[in-house]
């Protein structure tokens, strides 16, 4: 049976106390700014600092710990070599404002990465600037606005999204000032063409779509979707969170998408680091190039250079050139995988997902609403377990932790009741997939009180998330 390390690890200020005390201020500073009091951060011996964070790390689960099938998150293995190369002084020790002759290596990486991403997605140009997928979406919305305004088309203030869309889609569109129009999915779980057609109008700026969608279903009518969207003068936006399903098989550019964002920290194996840094490059078709952020990386006969000469550009979205360290890791990954490796990643990711899906369906414990063929992820419903034993998706997820596995994404997409959204990725072996499937089947047979009281083998028992909001304790001063 799995057991996690458990420490009653004190907070740093409990480890070594620190108190407010007066200090001698720096004389030359203006009086209004002189610090008179010591900074109340404890002074701790190096050994203790190391042990503190070592203990904390042992109470945390990463992809190196085991299978991590969070749907829509593509938690694949992060090759060690990528992190090592990104830490070299030759890259990490460079400043964005250096003379361009001294950063030719960095520019080469960016220039070549842009070409690679264009080929993988079928787009014409990329901006590497956005710091994450959501910022890529936001940039996509700014480009959408710039495009329509350039064409003197000022009435388009609506963004259409399916009810299966990621939460960031509506949030990004709203942040860019757009009105949101959500459309319900057809009974197969895909875009309802009739509904879409009726919703599209001269007010539509853009239709945002994920393909395969968040149910893991490929939108087979994508060419028809593209046609009716473009016929009304709107743009088609591709949320690339699920790109890991289709590399080397089909490209968003060929499907008719005008704007694409990728998540390098998903599809291209850069680590999540507990929440970031990520990178969300945005690709566009030719007609949108002139609006891309500055600077663009260009090359003349001999040298790479930054081009700021873009009068229609939206300007900047993130400081400097994006999260370069993440770009570099993805560049290294793509070099290693090559055309066949990327294709194989997607093929095996889809194979693994359909393999798990079949075994779980055959078990009869879980249901699969909507169409059967899935891509790299699939969404099961625990509704039967809820009806029969009052065991919910949350309970199943927590019980998986006791088996030493990271749970899937739960309660998303919203159109599946008691959803378990499972994305195994290509990184898992058949044995691990089998063990995960077995655990899910076993859990469905377990006594409800065991499942509902899970987890028991983790550093803490089930956490009361709501409690943190009722009585906020957000710093050690608030304890």
């Amino acid at each position: 049976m799995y057991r996690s390390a458990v420490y009653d690890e004190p907070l740093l200020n409990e480890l070594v106390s620190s108190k407010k005390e007066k200090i001698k201020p720096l004389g030359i500073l203006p009086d209004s700014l002189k610090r008179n009091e010591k900074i109340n951060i404890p002074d701790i011996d190096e050994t203790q600092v190391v042990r503190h964070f070592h203990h904390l790390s042992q109470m945390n689960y990463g992809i190196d710990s085991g299978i991590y099938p969070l749907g829509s998150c593509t938690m694949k293995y992060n090759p060690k070599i990528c992190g090592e190369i990104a830490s070299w002084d030759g890259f990490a020790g460079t400043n964005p404002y250096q003379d361009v002759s001294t950063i030719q290596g960095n520019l080469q990486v960016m220039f070549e990465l842009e070409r690679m991403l264009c080929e993988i997605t079928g787009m014409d140009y990329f901006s590497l600037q956005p710091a994450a997928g959501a910022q890529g979406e936001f940039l996509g919305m700014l480009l959408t606005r710039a495009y329509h305004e350039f064409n003197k088309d000022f009435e388009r203030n609506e963004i259409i999204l399916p009810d299966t869309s990621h939460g960031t889609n509506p949030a990004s569109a709203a942040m860019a000032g757009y009105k949101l129009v959500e459309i319900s999915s057809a009974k197969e779980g895909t875009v309802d063409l009739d509904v879409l057609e009726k919703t599209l109008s001269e007010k539509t700026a853009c239709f945002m779509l994920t393909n395969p969608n968040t149910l893991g279903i490929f939108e087979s009518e994508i060419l028809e979707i593209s046609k009716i969207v473009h016929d009304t003068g709107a743009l088609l936006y591709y949320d690339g969170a699920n790109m890991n399903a289709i590399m080397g098989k089909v490209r968003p550019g060929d499907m008719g998408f005008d704007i694409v964002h990728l998540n390098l920290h998903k599809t291209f194996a850069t680590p999540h680091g507990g929440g970031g840094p990520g990178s969300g490059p945005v690709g566009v078709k030719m007609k949108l190039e002139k609006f891309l952020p500055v600077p663009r990386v260009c090359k003349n006969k001999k040298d790479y250079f930054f081009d700021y000469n873009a009068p229609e550009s939206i300007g900047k979205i993130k400081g400097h050139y994006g999260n370069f360290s993440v770009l570099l890791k993805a560049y290294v990954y793509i070099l290693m995988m090559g055309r066949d490796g990327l294709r194989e990643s997607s093929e095996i990711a889809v194979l693994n997902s359909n393999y798990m899906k079949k075994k779980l369906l055959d078990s009869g414990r879980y249901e699969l609403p909507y169409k059967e063929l899935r891509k790299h992820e699939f969404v099961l419903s625990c509704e039967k377990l809820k009806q029969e034993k009052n065991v919910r998706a949350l309970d199943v997820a927590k019980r998986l932790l006791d088996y030493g596995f990271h749970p899937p994404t739960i309660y998303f997409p919203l159109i599946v009741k008691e959803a378990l959204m499972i994305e195994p990725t290509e990184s898992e072996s058949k044995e691990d997939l089998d063990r995960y499937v077995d655990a899910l089947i076993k859990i469905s047979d377990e006594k409800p009180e065991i499942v509902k009281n899970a987890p028991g083998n983790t550093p803490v028992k089930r956490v009361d998330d709501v409690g943190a909001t009722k009585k906020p304790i957000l710093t050690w001063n608030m304890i």
Partner: protein
Amino acid sequence: MKFIPNSAIKDTMLKEMGINDIEELFSDIPKKIGIKKLDMPKGLSQQDTEQRLRGIANKNKSFYDGVSFLGGGIKPHYIPSVVKSIISRAEFYTAYTPYQSEASQGFLQAMFEYQSMIAELTGMDISNCSLYGGFTALAEAALMCTRISRKKTFVIPQNISWEKKSILNNYAKGPGIEVKEVSYDVKTGKIDLEELKKHVDENTSGIYIENPNFFGVFEDKVDEISGIVKDTGSLFVVGIDPISLGVTKSPGEYGADIVIGEGRSFGNPMDFGGSSLGIFACKKEYLRQMPGRIIGITKDADDKRAFCMAFQTREQHIRRGRATSNICTNEGLCALAAVSYLSWLGGNGLEELSRINFEKGQKLAESIELLDGFEGMFSGVHFNEFVIKCSNDVNKVNKKLLKKDIQGGLVLDTWHPELKNCMLFGITERHADADIERLVSALKEVSHV
């Protein structure tokens, strides 16, 4: 294949599933657009990849290949091995966002400690656990001021980084916020208070200042500025260089409502400008309007202390189009580097570091100002960056320095035409006295050529 264990047994798996060909799994893709293969090279072995990247890295010159005195916010700082060791722990490095609290207690506690330290440093009640960087943190602060005040004019100094301004304007478009710029006093380099008064009125949502500002100069009239903010009923947003807080008061002590900044200098490398770490802290009454993740303390089923993500109902994965921000992925690992760094440094260490940076800044500025052909541009007290005006063409000066493997200051006239032949120097604890002497003697030489 290298990282794909089931590659070798895919036929066995397909058979078990009753499928003959893997293409059956892709039969839902219209034939018309399916592709056979990508037009790009085959993959390289790890050894060949490493070899190729060495060649590319050699085309760069890092700080350690010569010496650099670039100002503008990104400077080299010493990163203790402890930090590198902690953030390399794979349990942190390869974890996702801590949605499952029970499997993420380590990271959650570290983020809680990060928030505690940032709150302490900034003098605010609360902090989130990171935004993308200091630049977008300003944009998010402007949006938050409008959410709180329901007013739509945000006032900033004219002398902030042009990139920051451009980002702010892009974020301001959605809600229709007007950004007004206040000029600086050409003698001191500080914000012009009379101009500031003219730019604020009952429609002002927030007033932003930087301390030290983009020219490295301390804004010391903070009590007057705070008074102007209070008079207009708007919010006071202060941008900080976190290293400077070892010697200066926290913005909370002079009335700030929101404090933002770039936190890269806490244990993160320059990384060519990214990754970056957006610091965002505020008073607790604004908690529900805050962007980004916040970690809180709660209890587990046994009543034991536990950590989890708090106030998630502000966030996009719950609130969708009505979230306080669209941010999902943040800069978690950079925040972990920051909290490890601050733990290693301690309060006393940060104070000492801050003094060293301040003193080096004074020493370098004094040494350059003594030279013929170079003069200090502003009279205000500065931290570890400052503006120097050259009597010669500043680009030529920098080219000549470069031949000696010295990267000079940041040339300002591209974005600040009024600062012709001016450059922004920066220095930190990483620069030895010998580095200062090297720059000064080189400047002496090039100014005569």
